[in-house]
């Protein structure tokens, strides 16, 4: 009897220790995440400018987003178009690049480093750089494609600005290359050795070992890429503009959801309630997409012993 109470006493001390270890993070997510998310939901039912003005408007913000705001359709269209093209493009190109450098050729580390180099260009410098390179009057890209008799106005006209932006994402391929490379490293070498003994050629080894074995990573990358691309705001630097008009692109052709939320909330209007409602719509879309992705992941093959 006595022993039992001592054990349970020790157990409850341990429980307390466990709680104490996790307490900072519990407080942190309570104060800086969940409380704030609740606040944001609360604001979304108000006409709120962040300071004194705070009038309850019910569902008016949500209704206005879908019925009155002409920008809604534009930012959703642009963001989805961007996501639908750049996510598969990035995954496939990253995967191919990783396959290309997944060998033991002399100097392969140098190539890996060179491929990764564009990734370390800070976003603020990249914006200036792209605007400079793709300037239609004196940009170096027009000089390059001019060799083939081509000329484009790139970011300066609505029709070519989205393709140009998508083109610039190709230079980020090194980021996903690194993740794929580490995925390849985790595939047991024995699989390849026994496949070679069975006479499998390079294509078979890719098709029946590398690809299926990297599906967990493909899935993980797919989910994070979708979530990330829906929140893209790289155009804030490329397209510039003052408060309230940042990063819209020519005729709103590069206007994305997150940039609109930023402009609505922190631009001249200070429509924080409205922007909060927009943020919740984005949250719901991301949640639904993640749910659908997780429901449809039957093609993902997790290693059995895990």
């Amino acid at each position, binding site marked *: 009897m006595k022993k039992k109470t001592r054990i349970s006493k020790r157990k409850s001390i341990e429980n307390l220790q466990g709680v104490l270890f996790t307490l900072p993070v519990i407080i*942190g997510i309570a104060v800086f995440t969940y409380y704030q998310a609740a606040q944001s939901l609360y604001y979304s039912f108000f006409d709120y400018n962040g300071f004194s003005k705070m009038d309850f408007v019910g569902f008016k913000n949500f209704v206005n987003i879908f019925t009155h705001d002409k920008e809604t359709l534009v930012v959703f269209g642009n963001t989805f178009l961007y996501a639908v093209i750049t996510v598969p493009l990035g995954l496939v190109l990253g995967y191919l690049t990783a396959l290309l450098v997944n060998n033991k*050729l002399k100097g392969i580390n140098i190539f890996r480093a060179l491929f990764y180099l564009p990734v370390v260009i800070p976003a603020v410098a990249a914006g200036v*750089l792209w605007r400079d390179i793709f300037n239609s009057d004196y940009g170096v890209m027009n000089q390059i494609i001019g060799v083939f008799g081509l000329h484009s106005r790139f970011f300066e006209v609505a029709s070519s600005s989205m393709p140009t932006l998508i083109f610039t994402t190709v230079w980020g391929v090194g980021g996903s290359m690194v993740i794929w490379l580490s995925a390849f490293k985790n595939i047991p070498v024995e699989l390849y050795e026994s496949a070679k003994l069975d006479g499998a050629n390079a294509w078979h080894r890719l098709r029946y070992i590398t690809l299926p074995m990297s599906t967990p990573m493909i899935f993980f990358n797919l989910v994070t890429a979708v979530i990330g691309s829906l929140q893209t705001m790289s155009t804030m630097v490329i397209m510039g503009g003052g408060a309230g008009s940042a990063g819209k692109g020519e005729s709103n052709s590069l206007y994305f959801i997150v940039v609109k939320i*930023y402009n609505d909330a922190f631009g001249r209007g200070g429509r924080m309630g409205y922007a909060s409602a927009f943020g919740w719509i984005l949250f719901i879309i991301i949640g639904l997409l993640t749910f659908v992705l997780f429901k449809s992941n039957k093609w993902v093959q997790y290693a059995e012993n895990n």
Partner: protein
Amino acid sequence: MDTAIKYNKKHISAKNRLITAVLYLTLTAVAVFLIFPYVFMVSRSLMTVADYSQVPVNFFPAKPSLEAYKNIFVDSHYFKYMLNTLIIVAVNLIAVPLSASLCAYGFTKIKYPGSNFVFSLVLATMMIPGALLQIPLFVFFSKLGWLGTLLPFTLPSFLGGGALYIFLLMQFMRGIPNELENAARIDGAGVLTRYARITMPLCIPVVLFIMVSVFGGLWSDFYGPLIYLKTNPASYTLALKIYIDTISVNVSSALANVRMAAGVFMSIPPAVLFLLYQRKLVDGVMVGAIKG
């Protein structure tokens, strides 16, 4: 027979050499394409203002000049803002691994009733978009009087850690045998000693990975600083200062070469980290955790 084998071998090695040549050719072509913007940025940073605004643009400077770099380091146009960036980075390099590892230790090595539920609450924070939280946080920090100070980027980190980092550390800690902990416990080591002396030293690879990621995330971030620091130019980080200069029309052409130089300068630490860290990064701290 002999000659046939020999011929075959020769044939194979010729084929291999062809494959190798094609591989190198492809690698070089891809490399030239991918490093083009970086090389161009470096080249532009070595131009004088006059040289920079030449039309049509020269790919290489007429006469390489360190004018732009002198502007950063000697005339200190951008340099003073780096101090703010460094303060934020330094605090987070300590705070994030500390709070993340304490939490991960509590979840894996102690475990208490309900800890799984708490863990799922931590993981769920990954789903909430930053765009949703930034508005209430702006109001919250404004009420606390934190806007225009570095506090929003430092203090919360001691209570944060980030769901992904906690998750990575937990996966790693699960791989450490509990016998180590138990042996230390029998020797009379308290829980803090066991955390600091037994578990943490074994987690150094993940902690390094986290530090590299934390650095990369904060070093060039302009968006967070844009929201919380905009009102007070003295609090600007390097990235924010470059951004503000870029979007304001009057300075944007005047200091273009300096911004390129700042870009080159800002890219050096992440590039060096990548080179130092390439092996470990590729060996895959991340993947082990995701598969586990």
